[in-house]
């Protein structure tokens, strides 16, 4: 395997095919750790990992925390939404203060695009992007690719359709970068008001017709329709979205036999997918969650661990 040289994980745009494959490969070994009775290896003993979340998150934060703990790192959680920043402290200020306590990695989530890049430029700790604005969510896309590869044995040549509010989705953007690099054919599908300007330039096809997309798809990645964003007024109603783009068993009758239903969570049952589909035979939503821990262990290990072949 090639040498891992990156100090931070900021986005999939800047990752090479080899680097993506290295994360996926490393995660395979770590997945087994979480299945053990004693779910812990000493790989990152003595390292400190801080989770600095400016946006609420349950799934991603828990997943990162478990990943770090299973590698024996010490973890601290900071929900930074309001307290210090309302006192005139800037994001960079806060991050520098945290770094001054000798932490090895800062996992950051922020509602504004670019924040992890600014932190990485100004700090010496490793920065892991846990989602920035509508730009990227690299570990989500890595765990999605890991899951696809695990279930279907390959990524190259697969038709992957990402359905929903593409404009506001960092998950979509990271998956587009990663999946196209690994040779998948990506289609984005959603209402025209939720497809951002010039998305084709990222190497994807655009469709407004879910029923035309379903029969072609090996993977259907459904995104959360964020009700709280509906003051954007870019949708007539959630009801109309559910009827026109929501995936239910009826629509799935025309799908391929081995189609994967994926969702980055949390799901809006009855909106982007019906409960029966979310819990149905094609759904790998919980596998994604399981794999998320393995991917995040792999990322932490590659960024912070001693550079040796993985032996766990």
């Amino acid at each position, binding site marked *: 395997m090639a040498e891992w040289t990156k100090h931070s994980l900021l986005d999939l*745009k800047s990752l090479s095919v080899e680097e993506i494959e290295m994360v996926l490969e490393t995660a395979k070994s770590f997945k087994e750790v979480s299945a053990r009775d004693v779910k812990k290896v000493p790989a990152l003993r003595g390292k400190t990992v801080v989770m600095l979340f400016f946006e609420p998150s349950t799934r991603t934060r828990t997943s990162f925390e478990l990943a770090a703990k299973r590698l024996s790192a010490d973890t601290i959680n900071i929900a930074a939404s309001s307290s210090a920043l309302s006192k005139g402290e*800037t*994001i960079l200020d806060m991050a520098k203060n945290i770094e001054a306590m000798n932490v090895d990695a800062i996992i950051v989530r922020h509602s504004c*695009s670019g924040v992890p890049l600014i932190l990485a430029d100004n700090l010496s700790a490793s920065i892991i992007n846990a989602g920035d604005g509508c*730009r*990227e969510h690299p570990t989500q896309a890595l765990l999605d690719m890991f899951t696809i590869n695990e279930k279907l044995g390959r990524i190259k040549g697969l038709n992957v359709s990402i359905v929903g509010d593409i404009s506001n989705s*960092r998950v979509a953007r990271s998956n587009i970068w990663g999946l196209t690099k690994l040779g998948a054919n990506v289609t984005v599908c959603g209402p025209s008001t939720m497809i951002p300007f010039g998305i084709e330039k990222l190497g994807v096809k655009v469709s407004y017709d879910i029923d035309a997309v379903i029969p072609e798809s090996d993977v259907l990645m459904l995104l959360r329709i964020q009700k709280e964003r509906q003051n954007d007024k870019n949708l007539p109603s959630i009801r109309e979205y559910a009827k026109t783009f929501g995936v239910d068993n009826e629509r799935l009758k025309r799908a391929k036999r081995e189609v994967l239903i994926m969702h980055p969570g949390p799901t809006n049952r009855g909106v982007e997918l019906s409960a029966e589909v979310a819990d149905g035979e094609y759904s790998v939503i919980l596998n994604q969650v399981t794999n998320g821990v393995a991917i995040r262990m792999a990322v932490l290990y590659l960024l912070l661990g001693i550079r040796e072949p993985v032996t766990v």
Partner: protein
Amino acid sequence: MSLLIKNATIVNATKKSSSEKDILIEKGVIAKIGKSIKADGMKIIDAKGKYVLPGLIDLHVHLREPGREDRETIESGSKAAAKGGFTTVVCMPNTNPVIDNCMIVEAISKESKRVGLINIIPAGAITKGQKGEELSDMFELKKAGCLAVTEDGKSVSNSGLMRYAMEYCKMVGLVVMDHCQDHNLLGSGVMNEGDISTELGLKGDPGVSETIVVARDIELARYLDSSIHLQHISLARSISLIRGAKKEGIKVTAEVCPHHFTLTEEAVRTFDTSTKVNPPLRTKEDVAAIKKALKDGTVDCISTDHAPHTYEDKESDFDHAPFGMIGLETALGLVVTELVNQKVLSWPQVVEKMSAAPARILGLVNKGKIEEGADADIVIIAPETEWEFKKEEIVSKSKNSPFIGRKLMGLVETTICGGKVVY
């Protein structure tokens, strides 16, 4: 006090003189221009090898006083202007309180007299408190010293009210300027909407937010036979609308800013908040259209939209940082580097865009030219001198510029305002 500029290569909007002349300044006006004027013990400036231009006039600066003196003051802004070669600036009304009554205008005039460097002409707000509800008291503003009104950062979204503003100001004799932007279309946009905003996951400003208001203002001007000045035009499409309007004889004038012909949206990729400006940096096609429009006269003048913000204001994420960049100290250097040296504009055209046309728009008959009897507002430039724009040398209180570290051509050596050397 008299002053003599010797060996001047005088550049007016009409032409660059082919021989060197002397300029005698007495009592704040140009008393005489001629060969070998005798210096009877007066102060002499030798301008050998330099270009001598009428003082630059900027129709669009934010001086932040009153209200945000931490960003800029009338004093620091005057110094920055003088260093940039500007002798007259129009300051925007988005202060706190807003420039919408004679008291604020008089306070600004009083302070600018105390500072005593350059001419500061306040622009009033079109509506009281920039609230978009009632027109400001225009006669009062005019009497207090305003020559123009603008809603600045907030376009008047009510077209009926804008109609009244244009009709009323035509009667009063105030220039109406508009920051063309439909705020519903802008939404929460922070950069040009396009491939790059999509890739970066930043909210985009679709250009139609500007062009729709440009088209509206042109139609109002046509219908009312009024004039309108369009501020900081950023798009090729706006320029074709303006070009068409001028062909029809509609009284529209337009300005562009140096950053809009120097940088493109590519600069935002760094997430450097000093590249966040409103209207946003656009595409290379827009830059090309702006240059062409400057050359062919569709765009009348160059303004800076000098918008100081403190380090603390700008040290934020891209979404929350305020819009704007400083521009007074780099404008001429960027014009020389990007336009003169790239054969877009001649030196007389530079004078037209940065002095003669703005003077004409404001109705300042004794400014914008170097001739006997004109105001002694003069800038002396070393046209071939290369210099670096260094952060530690910025005179403005704020340092928010994407041009820090850039090498520029054309250095302001001396600025004279009202016969007094101010830089």
